[in-house]
């Protein structure tokens, strides 16, 4: 079945324009933050990634999402296999095996697993007979999400592993949950949190401690938070101007073109720029939610809402970290942070949203 004539007209142009606008801010900020460093060509690479990602978005739009959902078992198993493979053939960067080389590109597998998990949750919940989740369903879903989470945590990459939680969380909330289960989950989490403290790596503990009190170790883990807050604050109302932020340009800000790109942006463009950029993100999210509301079926709704929750989580944790209101987790800011995996996975998600939108008038 073709989607031919209606596809161009029915594409979510608002979503696309907003996403590309955010990408534009990102490219500008990558250029400003990385010029004169070894990453000076990262902005150019980012543009290439964006074009590649647009093509992928188009591709994923034209295959009916139901067809994609029917492939979930294969996709899920291959995801687990590839995640396991990163332990063997993965590229170790900063002591963490997250990347795998495919055709000359290094890809972060865990970013793409998100898509599979979104489809998986949508499929599982759509096929649910009852109006509320049973304990059996919860355990099964938890196990299905928990396995790749565990693998990603072992890379170790706690940040990305945590991004799988909102995918599950939004699904459970939308599907409906007995209050007893909800209470049990809260109780279990409350119990598990202190215990899991001991399972954390030292640097992860240090990040948490420095989040709670960054001044305790101003040159260690707290350094990033302090420098980021200084950068943001120094930006003031109007910002210091492109390539003029001292925190960014003199490298006091850690990784100003990737994880802390919004800090660099806030320094150089000020509060006004921040409102503009956050406004774009808000528009993007609302557009995703709108697509969930107009989705032709539950499956489409679950897919859109899963993507919305995931993007919201990313924005909350990354931007929250930049202003010192969230711990340092090292997850990228969607569409802005430099890196192909981030751009591609987000555009693939937007492609899924578009996929749902294209099929809203079916029957």
């Amino acid at each position, binding site marked *: 079945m073709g989607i031919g004539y209606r596809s161009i007209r029915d594409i979510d142009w608002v979503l696309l324009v907003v996403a590309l606008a955010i990408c534009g801010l990102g490219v500008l900020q990558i250029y400003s933050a990385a010029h004169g460093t070894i990453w000076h060509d990262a902005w150019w690479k980012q543009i290439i990634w964006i074009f590649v990602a647009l093509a992928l978005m188009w591709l994923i739009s034209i295959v009916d999402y*139901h067809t994609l959902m029917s492939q979930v078992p294969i996709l899920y198993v291959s995801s687990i296999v590839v995640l396991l493979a990163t332990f063997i053939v993965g590229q170790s960067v900063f002591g963490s095996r997250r990347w795998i080389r495919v055709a000359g590109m290094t890809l972060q597998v865990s970013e793409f697993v998100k898509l599979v998990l979104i489809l998986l949750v949508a499929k599982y919940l759509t096929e649910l007979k009852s109006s509320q989740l049973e304990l059996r369903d919860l355990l099964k879903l938890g196990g299905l999400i928990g396995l790749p989470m565990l693998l990603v945590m072992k890379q170790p990459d706690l940040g990305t592993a945590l991004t799988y939680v909102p995918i599950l969380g939004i699904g459970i909330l939308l599907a409906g949950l007995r209050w007893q289960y909800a209470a049990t989950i809260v109780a279990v989490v409350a119990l598990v949190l202190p215990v899991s403290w001991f399972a954390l790596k030292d640097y992860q503990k240090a990040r948490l401690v420095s989040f709670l009190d960054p001044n305790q170790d101003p*040159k260690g883990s707290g350094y990033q938070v302090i420098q980021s807050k200084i950068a943001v604050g120094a930006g*003031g109302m109007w910002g210091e101007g492109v390539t003029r932020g001292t925190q960014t340009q003199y*490298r*006091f800000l850690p990784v100003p073109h990737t994880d802390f790109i919004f800090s660099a942006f806030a320094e150089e463009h000020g509060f006004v720029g921040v409102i503009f950029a956050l406004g774009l993100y808000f528009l993007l999210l609302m557009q995703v939610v709108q697509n969930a509301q107009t989705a032709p079926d539950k499956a*489409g709704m679950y897919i859109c*809402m899963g993507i919305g929750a995931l993007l919201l989580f990313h924005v909350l944790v990354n931007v929250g970290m930049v202003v010192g209101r969230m711990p340092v987790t090292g997850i990228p800011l969607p569409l802005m942070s430099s890196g192909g995996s981030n751009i591609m996975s987000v555009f693939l998600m937007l492609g899924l949203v578009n996929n749902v939108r294209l099929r809203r008038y079916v029957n």
Partner: protein
Amino acid sequence: MSLSDLEREQQQAAITRDDPKFASARIAGFQYLTVAVFIFLVAGFWDLQVRNPEFYSERAEENYIKSVPVLAPRGRIFDRDGRIIVDNHSSYSLILTRENLNPAHLKPIADGLGIDYHDLVDRLARMRGRPKYEPIIIKEELSPQDLAFVDAHRDRDTFPEMSLIRAQRRLYPENGIAAHVIGYVGEISDAQLDNADYADKYHPGDIIGQAGLEAQYNETLMGQDGQRRVKVDNMGRERELMEDKPAVPGQDLHTTLDLDLQTVAELAMDGRQGAVVAMDPRTGEVLAMVSHPSYDPNIFSGRVPAKEWKELLSDPAKPMLNRAIQAQFAPGSTFKPIEALGGLEEGVITDDFKVHCGGGASFYGHYFACHKKGGHGEVELHKGIVQSCDVFFYNVGNKLGIDRIAKYAEMAGFGKPTGIDLPHEASGVVPSTKWKWRNFRQKWFAGETISVAIGQGALTVTPVQLATAIAGIANGGVWPHPHLTRDAKVEAARKYNVSLENVAKVIYGMYGVVNEGGTGGRARIPGMNVCGKTGTAQLASTAMVKSANGKMKNNAWFVGFAPRENPEIVVVALFEHGAEGMMAAPIVRDVMKAYFDKKARNEAPLPALAELELPPLLQPVRAGQPARTEHP
């Protein structure tokens, strides 16, 4: 697309395409959550960027702006021929910048550099009141090991507060030559900072002159430190120069000292305790000033280890004392020329004034001995000076009375500092009836006058006072102001209306002391007409000196000038515990001989050279003229 595919799709649709709106309330809930998240984030930015951006701007500046002082080199010190006495040499000093100082780093830094941790903490505490951008010098003269330590640990992740700066260190002559005149520099002390004079001009941590010319001319020599403000990146690399205030180097100091004479005088005093002052009587320029024992000022140019300080201060020989201006001793017989002049001026010594010396005389019920037991027989003025007859001067003094003696002692410059350009000059004592009443509320006893008449009793002088006094006589009643720098503002010489005829009689006596078989024969330089006077000053009663079994000897003085007509040089030597005045005479002779030898050397070839009409730059340098020196 096949039929079966269509069927399956429809079947699937029957199952899944139920009402997607069932969750609309929950989706709305998600929208509210999204709004809440964005409000939460915007509040974060509002807090940082709108509510207190200045706070963060300042912290950003602290990050990238670094100020490094540029230390001004101190002016150098030259002798009268333009030869360097005190030079600088460059070295590295370690400073701590306080913009990013972490107190926890102090201990490992102190350990790494081998400095005392508590000392370092104290220094930091002292600097607390200063602006933060002013760094603190914590170690000077870094050794190669220190430099390696700093280099290995100054990166951002270790001790980024460490910075190196080039500093100029003082380099003094070895063996303590001219140490007391030159003085030394040191860090300004807490006590000095409590003093308003210092606190206005200097800051904690400043290196200032602490003694001698270094202290006297500190403002000339010190210069003004500059400052570099640079933008640095997170690795401490300079990215941009914001401000470069260059240091203003201190001005050089041209002294009147002659290193040749200074060295000869130092050698003459080698192993002895005392002082030498050589002066040009025409100008008051001090050519040499020696105080022994001496010390090595180079140990003061860093921070002085407490142990060495203690040793220097507790040494009974008092090496830190500048005896030339601070030792106050009875002049002994070197006072006799001044008293003789007084006697002549007051008409006490007339042409037929003669005294019989039988080895002693009684005054006011006390017997006063002459240094020659057998006596000098018939003594008039000339013989009295040449033979240094005490009985003759007992009688002169007795006739003059203490107040007239004091008048001439004060005319000669005793009793108050000469005003030489050195700190902490002593004034000596000229006793008089007024002086005694003021200090002891007692009447003067005439018997006391007899001791003062031969330069004993309460009368004390410093070597530089004595040199000035003799210069005045040599000049015929014109007392110059001694000084050590060529650019110093010197007061006009004090002129007294003394009869030149009387002065000539005294000088004739002093000529006889050296050239007519008098007590100062050892100072003779053939062809030079050296005039002089010995002095043997008792430290205590003769009985005490004897009982000390030679361990406690009298001080030996010799004052001399030459030539007899138009004198060019006055030399005073104090040889503590030298036993007899004649022991000090060779010291004076050596210095004078060096002066005249040098003069002869310099003058001989000059006329021939002058005839060659050399370009100005190649003009020969005469003694007494500053040679061309290299100025930056």
